[in-house]
């Protein structure tokens, strides 16, 4: 079904205009992070990074200020003003543990809910789904007090350990996938005397690689982007994650826009790279789970 020409032209025009609108904030982010401070008072702002000579030639030729000479100064200053490499390591540690914990525990639990048959299974499963409606604010305070009781405030434990105890959303996702694994395969393995753990590890999990990728990706993203968790539990700057570090940067040096955008760019780049490697998993994951980012 091809579009009539007029409709196609209108459609293309709208898409191009909107693309500019959606890209502009990214362009502004990177530009501010690379521009010398004095560029910032110029209007309209120049968006093209170029060597000084080229920038000047372009200005002479067009009579407009279009290009600027990029500098890495904001990156150097921003990264030393707050210990970004340390925050990066902390974030990566939390993310890695969260991903491992989530994949292991949520898939095991999902096996119990989706592959095994036992009395009370479905009731419990629906109770789990129902509690997903509970706003986090309700449990936030008592959960904080539990971790405080354990003496684990200001450690990564409150951010990571829950991931090892299964999260309803990812359990749900795994279970939906496990339901599509042929029952005959599982039954045949049981006939051969394989234990349930063997079947989980040897048959069901290898058949569920797309589900593992989706869960891993979303668990990683959730941990990378999480702000409220670190805000509640991490007090020491040496424990901060990138989210918390950037928020602290805003509080303490909020007028240093160049440096703030440099740190923000560093936080965004890994996610963008990840997206281009796992684009299909992203899109498919959103479609199957209904999860909004």
């Amino acid at each position: 079904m091809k579009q009539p020409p007029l409709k196609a032209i209108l459609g293309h025009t709208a898409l191009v205009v909107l693309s500019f609108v959606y890209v502009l904030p990214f362009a502004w982010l990177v530009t501010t992070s690379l521009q010398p401070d004095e560029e910032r008072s110029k209007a309209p702002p120049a968006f093209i990074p170029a060597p000084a000579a080229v920038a000047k030639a372009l200005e002479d030729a067009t009579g407009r200020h279009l290009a600027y000479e990029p500098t890495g100064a904001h990156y150097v200053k921003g990264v030393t003003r707050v210990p970004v490499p340390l925050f990066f390591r902390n974030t990566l540690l939390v993310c890695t543990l969260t991903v491992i914990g989530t994949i292991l525990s949520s898939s095991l639990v999902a096996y119990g809910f989706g592959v095994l048959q036992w009395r009370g299974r479905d009731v419990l499963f629906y109770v789990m789904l129902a509690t997903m409606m509970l706003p986090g604010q309700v449990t936030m305070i008592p959960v904080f007090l539990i971790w405080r009781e354990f003496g684990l405030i200001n450690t990564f434990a409150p951010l990571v350990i829950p991931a090892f105890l299964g999260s309803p959303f990812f359990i749900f996702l795994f279970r939906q996938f496990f339901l599509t694994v042929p029952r005959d395969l599982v039954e045949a393995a049981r006939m051969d005397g394989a234990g349930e753990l063997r079947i989980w590890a040897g048959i069901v999990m290898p058949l569920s690689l797309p589900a593992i990728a989706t869960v891993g990706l979303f668990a990683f993203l959730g941990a990378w982007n999480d702000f409220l968790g670190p805000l509640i539990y991490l007090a020491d700057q040496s424990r901060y994650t990138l989210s918390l570090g950037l928020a602290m940067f805003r509080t303490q040096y909020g007028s240093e826009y160049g440096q703030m955008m440099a740190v923000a760019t560093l936080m965004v780049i890994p996610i963008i790279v990840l997206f281009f490697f796992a684009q299909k998993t992203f899109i498919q994951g959103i479609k199957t789970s209904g999860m909004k980012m």
Partner: protein
Amino acid sequence: MNRAKEWRAGLLFISPFLVGFTLFTIYPVLASIYYSFCDFDIVSPTVPVGLANYRELLSDERFHHSLYNTLIFTLFAVPVTMLTALVLAFLLNMKLKGQAFYRTLFFLPSIVPLVASSVLWLWLLNPDYGLLNTMLRPVLETINAVAGTGFRPPGWLVDANYTKAALILMSTWGVGGSMILYLAALGDVPVTLYEAAELDGAGAWRKAWHVTLPMISPVLLFTLVMGLIGTFQYFSQAWIMTPNGQPGDATLFYALYLFYNAFLYLRMGYASAQAWILFLVIVAATMLVFRTTRRFVYYGGEGT
């Protein structure tokens, strides 16, 4: 396998969940109910005070303000973001070249970490040097010169009249998730329905109104409910961009005030009461949505 053995295996597999569920859901829910009837600040002993917290909420003007802010914000932010996502999805669903590229572009902002997008928009919305006002200023000046008016670019986050609009504007940048859901739903609408409508002489608008929207209404309802629940808990952006609910409590959102009470003023009993009111508000809003939309949502296989 016999019954008991099956049962044991099942429980064994879900045991991580049972531990987590007991520790991080069942106990906290019960504790939170109890705390909401107590004076509790961590350091001094917990004192049961009956309904005092709830009664205080009734007369706490900052609380009323936070509830009002959140309701108004939700009322506008949810439809505006849904409409933006729908428009993008409609455009992406046209049979045109380069759609994969456009889809990537529109989707990318939604995976930018909230803290990063918040500081970025803080800068974009800067009244003096931000990109938005830099672009807006010449346009307004031209209008002023022609029409003799006195328009000035808004102060966005520093002007209480514009803060909510500014935050809603920001949220339209990150609608990629719903956009993908709508796009998938649009792709699932059977072509035969459109053909039938065309045979009946329906134009583009009538097809959109009578075929497309009813067919994707379950997804619309889903995103509406999820959007409501999420927006009622709006927190990170406000914490970073407009700390303390500045200017003048205009951005004191429900979850923000709750957080301040809990972790800043250490009024944990009071904050627990707030949390339960939030839960009731969310349940009420969700029920209201399900009731009022029942007539409009079409589920295939239900007959008409």
